[in-house]
């Protein structure tokens, strides 16, 4: 049996019995509620046992007290659930349900106090679970679920803002977020399943409506999403390609600029007298102090001219081979020692070098320094000319925003993430803003080129391209906000959304109309069927549609009409039958008073023909001597004609003859189909004929024959009726014959008595004899009467000739 196959069901059955025993008012509704409580308890306890197992294993891994405490809370909740179960077995279903809900609140209300980053799982999962358990165990009492849900929300909110205990971040254990996600997923699945059940068990109207709307919306939404993603991707690709080409352009400009820095220093050095001036400065032993001062003045002037002319530098300076700044356009810098600076070390080894943007504490700025070594006639480095580049030039290059739209920008960032060129957004000063976006980290840490979509330093989400500029040791980033880059895309997405919403509304309206056109007639038909079931047959459905529903209505109407007709013909037939029986009775009653045979048969045929509206009826009686059936009565003119013709049929011939010969009724519903049927020229309209023997037991007295002028105008019911009449006729015929016999006997007795009287009145033998002869002759109508006397010894007898 099923009980054995499913121990859960067996357990449930026993619970139902216990509960029903404990609670005398146990109803079927209660039974459903109990079933739900039962399964909630089973699933809940199972889930808690699994969770406790999981938490124990997590605890063993981490030793975090939160896990241990959660196991405790879970166990407490499990105990509560068991208490609820016991209450349920005692028939206290609502109390049991309250306890189950309380257990849910305990478990899910506890979580947010001790788990970090699990708020949305615990909040969402808890609320869903409360609604689910509430709906199952307290059907219809939504105010209770709402109260529990509100209470849970309150606890959750308190836990969200108030941190009474140290929380364990679930992200610290990679398995834990998965665990929470899976548990919440299961809750969602269960709810989804419940929703599907509601849908499946809903009315046709609901199901059709939901199906129509989802069939309309799903493809539309999928296409819209797909189109949006595709166009979004192509927009992104396009914008990124554009940014990339801009970045390439900027990189080329930067390289050109760096080259020009070196060139400008070279030109300055090569300038007339320069080499000589420098040599006199760098080689003190070869010149007098006055020369040095003059050379310094000249050089400083030349440096200033270069700065003014090229606008490439903010400072040009000369460094001795020992690393001291001998001369500078910024007097503050003179005398400083730069031996530890990279640019000096590079230039000392004879290399033209440009030091990438570097922060110099003394200037408090990040600058680029370009250097060229100066060689003496022996080809040895005797000093270095250096230029601190004018960063505004770099800024101008990067600030050029052709093709970057309203939000696009390109900027450089130094190795330490510092912003080197101006931002188009306020609040990000050059040199003091540190850029640590995804792009900045990639380009600076990995020194690679790339592109991506990420949150930029100014907070907006951007499409960005980044390049590592090796010549300058900086990262170049070109960005445009996603908002702007995808604005066209967003417009089409908005359009798609409008389309989806419009289609959704149309789908709802259309499906409402269609649903109504199906569901309403079905409702009408259902009502009508109910009415018909109640016996009301005079209804008909208004058929307005030409479709299957209309056909159904028509068929329904036709079915109702048929039933109605069937019922009414049945009534007609009952009426007919009753009338026939009445006729039969009437005939019998009349026959019983008629003792004259010819009068009887004539009466019978007329009565039968009139009562049943036959075309014709007649009776044949069997002449025992000739074994012919002689027609004795017939209706109408044809009957009279046949009587005059002394119509007769031999036994065994024709319908009538066969009926007489077999003593069985014969029915020919359609004479045209009957072989050997003899038409009577006097009765040309005959289409059906029935011949019923008039018999008294085995003795056939005659045949009652009726004819109808319609095919199938005569049926078995007619035959049965006629047979019963024929039987009455047989009795009546027999009566008339017996009466006739008795009358004859009486008349004979009276005659004899009369003759005796006449004989007795005679006085002599002769006279007496003559009287006797005369009277006998009169009575017997004999031609000759003879009386012979015989001796007494011979015991004389009278002879009749």
């Amino acid at each position, binding site marked *: 049996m099923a009980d054995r196959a499913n121990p859960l069901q067996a357990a449930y059955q026993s619970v139902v019995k216990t509960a029903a025993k404990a609670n005398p008012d146990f109803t079927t509704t209660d039974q459903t509620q109990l079933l739900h409580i039962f399964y909630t308890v089973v699933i809940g306890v199972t889930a808690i046992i699994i969770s406790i197992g999981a938490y124990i294993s997590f605890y063993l891994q981490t030793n975090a007290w939160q896990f241990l405490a959660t196991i405790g809370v879970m166990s407490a909740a499990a105990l509560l659930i068991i208490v609820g179960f016991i209450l349920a077995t005692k028939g206290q279903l609502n109390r049991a349900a309250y306890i189950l809900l309380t257990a849910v609140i*305990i478990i899910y209300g506890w979580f947010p*106090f001790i788990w970090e980053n699990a708020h949305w799982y615990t909040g969402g999962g808890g609320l869903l679970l409360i609604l689910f358990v509430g709906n199952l165990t307290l059907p219809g009492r939504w105010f209770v679920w709402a109260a529990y849900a509100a209470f849970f929300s309150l606890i959750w909110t308190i836990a969200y803002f108030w941190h009474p205990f140290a929380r364990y971040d679930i992200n610290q254990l990679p398995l834990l977020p998965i665990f929470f996600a899976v548990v919440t997923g299961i809750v969602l699945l269960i709810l989804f399943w419940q929703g599907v059940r509601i849908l499946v068990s809903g009315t046709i109207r609901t199901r059709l409506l939901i199906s129509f709307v989802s069939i309309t919306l799903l493809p539309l939404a999928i296409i819209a999403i797909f189109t949006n993603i595709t166009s979004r991707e192509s927009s992104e690709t396009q914008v990124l390609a554009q940014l990339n080409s801009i970045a390439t352009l900027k990189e080329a400009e930067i390289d050109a600029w760096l080259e020009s820095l070196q060139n400008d220093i070279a030109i300055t050095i090569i300038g007339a007298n320069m080499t000589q001036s420098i040599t006199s400065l760098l080689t003190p032993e070869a010149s007098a102090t006055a020369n040095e001062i003059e050379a310094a003045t000249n050089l400083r002037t030349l440096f200033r001219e270069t700065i003014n002319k090229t606008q490439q530098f903010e400072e040009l300076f000369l460094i001795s081979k020992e690393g001291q700044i001998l001369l500078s356009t910024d007097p503050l810098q003179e005398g400083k020692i730069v031996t530890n600076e990279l640019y000096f070390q590079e230039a000392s080894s004879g290399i033209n070098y440009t030091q990438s943007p570097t922060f110099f504490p*003394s200037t408090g700025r990040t600058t680029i320094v370009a250097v060229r070594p100066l060689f003496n006639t022996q080809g040895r480095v005797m000093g270095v000319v250096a230029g601190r580049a004018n960063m505004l030039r770099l800024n101008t290059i990067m600030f050029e925003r052709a093709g970057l739209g309203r939000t696009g920008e390109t900027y450089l960032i130094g190795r330490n993430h510092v912003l080197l060129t101006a931002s188009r957004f306020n609040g990000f000063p050059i040199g003091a803003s540190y850029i640590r976006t995804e792009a900045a980290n990639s380009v600076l840490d990995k020194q690679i080129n790339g592109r991506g979509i990420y949150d930029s330093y100014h907070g907006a989400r951007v499409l960005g391209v980044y390049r590592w500029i090796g010549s300058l040791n900086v990262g170049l980033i070109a960005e445009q906000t996603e908002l702007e880059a995808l604005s066209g895309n967003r417009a089409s997405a908005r359009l798609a959304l409008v389309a989806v919403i419009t289609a959704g509304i149309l789908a709802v309206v259309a499906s409402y109309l269609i649903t109504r056109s199906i569901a309403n007639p079905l409702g009408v038909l259902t009502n009508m069927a109910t009415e018909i079931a109640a016996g009301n047959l005079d209804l008909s459905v208004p058929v307005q549609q030409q479709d299957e529903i209309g056909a159904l209505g028509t068929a329904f109407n036709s079915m109702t009409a048929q039933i109605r007709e069937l019922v009414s013909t049945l009534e007609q037939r009952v009426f007919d039958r009753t009338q026939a029986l009445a006729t039969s009775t009437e005939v019998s009653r009349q026959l019983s008073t008629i003792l004259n045979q010819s009068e009887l048969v004539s009466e019978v045929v007329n009565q039968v023909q009139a009562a049943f509206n036959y075309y014709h009826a007649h009776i044949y009686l069997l002449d025992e001597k000739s074994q012919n059936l002689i027609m004795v009565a017939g209706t109408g003119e044809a009957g009279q004609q046949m009587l005059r013709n002394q119509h007769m049929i031999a036994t065994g011939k024709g319908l009538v003859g066969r009926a007489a010969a077999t003593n069985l009724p014969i029915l020919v519903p359609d004479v045209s189909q009957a072989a050997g049927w003899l038409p009577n020229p006097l009765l040309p309209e005959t289409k059906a004929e029935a011949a019923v023997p008039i018999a008294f037991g085995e003795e056939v007295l005659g045949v009652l024959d009726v004819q109808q002028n319609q095919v199938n105008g005569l049926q078995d019911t007619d035959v049965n009726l006629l047979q019963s009449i024929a039987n009455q006729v047989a009795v009546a015929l027999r009566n008339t014959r017996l009466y006739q016999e008795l009358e004859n006997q009486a008349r004979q007795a009276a005659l004899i008595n009369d003759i005796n009287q006449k004989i007795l009145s005679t006085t002599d033998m002769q006279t007496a004899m003559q009287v006797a002869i005369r009277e006998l002759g009169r009575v017997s109508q004999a031609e000759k009467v003879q009386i012979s006397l015989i001796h007494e010894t011979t015991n004389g007898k009278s002879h009749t000739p």
Partner: protein
Amino acid sequence: MVNQRYHFAIFLIIVSIIIVASGCNTAADNKPLDQITVQLSWFHTAEFAGFYVAAQQGFYAAENLDVTLVTGGPEVNPVAEVLAGNAQFGVTAGDNIIRARANGDEVTAVASIYQHSPLIVMALADSGITRPQDLVGKTVGVISPNLDTTWDIQFVAMLNHLGIDIADMTLIPIENYHGAAELVSGRMDAASGFFSINEPVQARLDGDEITTIFYSDYGILLYANPIFTTNDLINTQPDLVQRFVRATIRGYLLAIEQPEQTVTDVLQYDANLTQEGELATLLAQIPLINTGYTRVGQMEANVWQTTVDILLEQNVITAPVNINTVYTNTFIDGMQQ
């Protein structure tokens, strides 16, 4: 119905009690945290922002460390405190570590907060003092009249390198370290041994126009605030050192990225600190901490060698010290940045 609602209310009360009660039930904790004491070189200031952030943002806790930060000051010798076992880690100027090594003390620098030396001479802008040569004939403030502190040694080294005779100026000890107070009062023309991120920042906040002379502009390189520990700890518990360095540098990285939030953490440690002052200090020291050319905390041989040379020049130490015994980048290299 009334009866059921009554029960419902009771259940809600029970639930509340259970939740509150179960919250009180704090069970056993993790492995015990490693107790660490750090002897700072100075009073609480944004200079030590990385330590505060690491403590406040749970970086130390994440490394299973419980860190106590102890303030220093002119009277405190962090090397002695660490050697005495009063602290496991200390912050002190690079020359102190070299001196300890010369003494045979087993301490090693494991990271340097600043890459550039912040040491400066500060003067008022209208004093006309813009280079060391301008100090000749002026009254100059020093940290100690004995000129034996780190800051004075560096100052003397700078003058020596430039061939300036220290006897040509009048030296008096600085008494007031607030901004440019000593200069404004006229007690001195210039003050040596200041940190570019401290007094000048404060002076500018106070509205004083000042000039600064960086020692590093004259070849005087120094790690002003390396983090050090004992060789014993490095040898016996390298993991502990690694965890401490990692958490601290993470603290500095966050401090660099989010100066505004970091100030909140700094202010937790001293009620006298101001939001404005500490933020300015924080912003000023970012380029010193993160140059972009070395990893945060990393140390370079030439800087240490410069310091050794200066100490030898001034006979603070008598024999050269192998700089490889003075510092290690092992723990900076051993972490992701």
